[in-house]
């Protein structure tokens, strides 16, 4: 079914200061096929796609498009060639309508060329949406729509360029199963029309369904291209990682205390959460699973008082406490580690010492308010040793550390504050597989030492591997708490989609 070759890349390299992001990579795409590119975070997939869509310039290499050598030097040029991309982070203008977003840069104009033809704009958008079987109001403001519907706008926009090649970077990362299915229908009809689709996804199980071929890249280098029918998920994973990885690892059996450290009852918020109740035991890792928008982060924020609760009670070690703001939470020994470390967890242009003592500064100043340098550096060095933070010294700026080591600095901050309860929001987001293992070990070590951990994660293998029990949320409600031994990906997904569709 695959047609003629649309696009090929040979020997493409790209270097950033200090990093070789792509090294002699090749790739090709036929008309009427879906060719998946997989690789770990930082493997170079996004860099490759940015070169193809004109955002980055390649250092070396040849791109052939429909038989001609081309030099894609700007997004504008990529689009006029017929290469469009759906970016991983949605690239829409929230204050504009669906139709305005789809045709941005190519608005139908009146004869004067200055004035817009808004009625034609809406009509064209409607025709396109109908053609793709996407049910959206062209006049709706994009900022007022759900992420999934925004994703549909992105797809319509990409198709509207009428190009031959459409790049989709993680298009399903925020979609429910039925929305994913709808997307696949669109992809299949594009395929049937002879379009070539480059499909990037972390969800390997999707590739079985949607892709024709799979190319693996690792550390910026080309590894292998395979027909999807002739390979398997374990093979793809081992090619991605460069070694065998056990996807189905589970936590070691640990003797769990019966002591309840934290008890939450009927937590509700104005916007999303509805009567969420759960108990967290001493030394336990309680995983929170669910789809995007299920309310897991919102629950954490309500617990630590970052967002107001409309109802709900919280007990700490049997005593009812009132947490009205993050300060109260820290006083109660609850530390929250945001999924966006760089924005909410770290001072990037400060050293490790400053970051480690940030939540416990009063302990490290004398009565005149002057810093006690010795003890501060001491706790920083202790943390570096205990958490195995890889750094030349405690004076290193945090922005120079890798993602995994940055995460450890955030953990050190809360340990320095003597937090008994740690809430991890996506603890391994943006962290490489090797470093992930270390974070996992660290979490287990902390739990064994008696810390109680709430771990919010969107990666099911991670939830299954780490959690003693798994709480699943859907649309702001807690739909189930499962013992690890009773859980698998299917069971979790069932709970996670309980109220959907």
């Amino acid at each position, binding site marked *: 079914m695959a047609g003629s070759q649309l696009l090929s890349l040979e020997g493409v390299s790209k270097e950033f200061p200090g990093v070789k992001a792509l090294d002699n990579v090749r790739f090709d795409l036929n008309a009427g096929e879906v060719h998946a590119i997989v690789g770990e975070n930082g493997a170079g997939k996004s860099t490759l796609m940015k070169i193809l869509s004109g955002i980055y310039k390649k250092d070396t290499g040849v791109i052939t498009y429909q038989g001609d050598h081309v030099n894609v030097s700007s997004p504008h040029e990529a689009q006029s060639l017929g290469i469009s991309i759906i970016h991983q982070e949605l*690239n829409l203008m929230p204050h504009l309508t669906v139709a305005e977003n789809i045709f941005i840069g190519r608005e139908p104009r009146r004869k004067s060329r200055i004035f817009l033809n808004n009625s034609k704009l809406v009509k064209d958008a409607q025709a396109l949406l109908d053609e793709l079987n996407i049910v959206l109001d062209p006049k709706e403001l994009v900022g007022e729509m759900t992420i999934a519907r925004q994703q549909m706008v992105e797809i319509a926009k990409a198709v509207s360029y009428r190009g031959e090649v459409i790049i989709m970077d993680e298009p399903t990362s925020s979609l429910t199963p039925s929305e994913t299915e709808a997307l696949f229908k669109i992809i299949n009809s594009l395929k049937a029309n002879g379009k070539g689709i480059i499909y990037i996804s972390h969800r390997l199980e999707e590739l079985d369904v949607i892709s024709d071929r799979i190319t693996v890249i690792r550390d910026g280098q080309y590894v292998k291209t395979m027909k999807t029918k002739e390979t398997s998920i374990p093979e793809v994973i081992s090619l991605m990682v460069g070694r065998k990885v056990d996807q189905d690892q589970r936590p070691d059996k640990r003797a769990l205390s019966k002591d309840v450290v934290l008890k939450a009852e009927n937590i509700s918020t104005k916007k999303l959460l509805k009567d969420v109740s759960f108990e967290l035991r001493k030394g336990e890792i309680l995983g929170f699973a669910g789809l995007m928008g299920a309310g897991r982060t919102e629950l954490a924020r309500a617990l630590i008082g970052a967002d107001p609760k409309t109802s709900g009670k919280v007990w700490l070690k049997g005593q009812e406490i009132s947490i009205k703001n993050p300060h109260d939470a820290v006083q109660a020994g609850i530390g929250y580690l945001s999924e966006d470390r760089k924005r909410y967890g770290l001072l990037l242009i400060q050293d490790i010492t400053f970051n480690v003592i940030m939540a416990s500064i009063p302990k490290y100043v004398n009565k005149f308010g002057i810093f006690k340098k010795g003890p501060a550096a001491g706790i920083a060095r202790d943390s570096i040793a205990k958490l195995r933070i890889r750094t030349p010294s405690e004076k290193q700026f945090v922005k120079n550390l890798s993602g995994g080591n940055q995460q450890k600095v955030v953990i050190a901050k809360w340990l320095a504050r003597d937090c008994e309860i740690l809430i991890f929001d996506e603890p391994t987001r943006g962290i490489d597989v090797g470093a992930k293992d270390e974070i996992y070990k660290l979490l287990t070590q902390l739990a064994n030492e008696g810390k109680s951990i709430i771990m919010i994660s969107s990666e099911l293998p991670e939830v299954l591997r780490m959690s003693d029990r798994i709480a699943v949320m859907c649309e702001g409600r807690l739909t189930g708490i499962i013992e690890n031994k009773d859980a698998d990906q299917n069971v979790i997904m069932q709970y996670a989609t309980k109220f959907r569709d």
Partner: protein
Amino acid sequence: MSTTVKATTSEEVSGNKFMALIRREIGQVFAIAGLVIIFAFFSFMKPVFYSWANVSNGILMSTTVTGLLAVGITFVIITGGIDLSIGTGTTLCAILVAHYVVGWHLPLWSGFVIGMSFGALIGALNGAMIAFLKLPPFIATLATMKAAQGLALIISHLTPIRFDTVKGWESIAQGNLIGSIPNGVLILFGAAIVAWFILNRTVIGRYTFAIGSNGEATKLSGVKVERWLILIYALCGLFVGLAAVVLTARLGAAEPDLGLGYELEAIAAVIIGGTSLLGGKGTISGTIIGALIMAVLTNGLRILQVQQEWQYVVVGIVIVIAVFGDNVRRRRAGEIS
């Protein structure tokens, strides 16, 4: 079957649309209500306040210059930028207009051409520094603001240039083409209507919103954002030039030390009018209402014989109330957290 389904949805949609319109424009509804309340308050305290003489010459006429500047800077603020140079830019344009029109004995209409050309040039320069040198708008326009202030003083030799020799110059602002409405007020409202069309009906208006909403995405969509930014700042400059002409016509002279601080008055009017400093959102009508609120306040307090010093304090408080009120409303509506 399918028709019934369609009928209900379209009905629902139109119902939702009406509610959405109200919800979207509620900020302006509040602003108009605020304007009416303040107006009613002063009218009640001093009936002379609502006399046509006071409304036309006291309130509307005093809005013309800051109003024009506010309309221009609305475009810049919607892109998420700022232009601090519009105040002293007005001074420089005024001096240049006087320099050429008075010095070279040019006809009246050429004053508009000169003022708006130099205004657009200053704006384009700001835009170029922001788009190509990648200077933050605050810094780029701060630099222009100082430079314009200096140039105005240099060109004028620190003395006001009078328009005594130009016949009818003052009628640009003070004459009455239509009824008893001062021409300056006509210019302001005419310019506001043109600005509304540009913002809502033209390509440059669409890109103004797009850049402010998500500049990176706009660029990735193939829009030449740099070029449009320069045009948008130049467009703002056109209004600066127009404001300069109106200012000189009101005073009968170009004053080299008058204009500094106008930029903040204009920005205050835009903010009171509900345009977001974060970009992506804003209206011309809101800006006009904002400018009117400021003018009504200043004029009303003056009529109540409140000292000038206290007038400033009141304007400060009104800005806080307006923006805080807007924040509360939007938090309730769930637009921001």
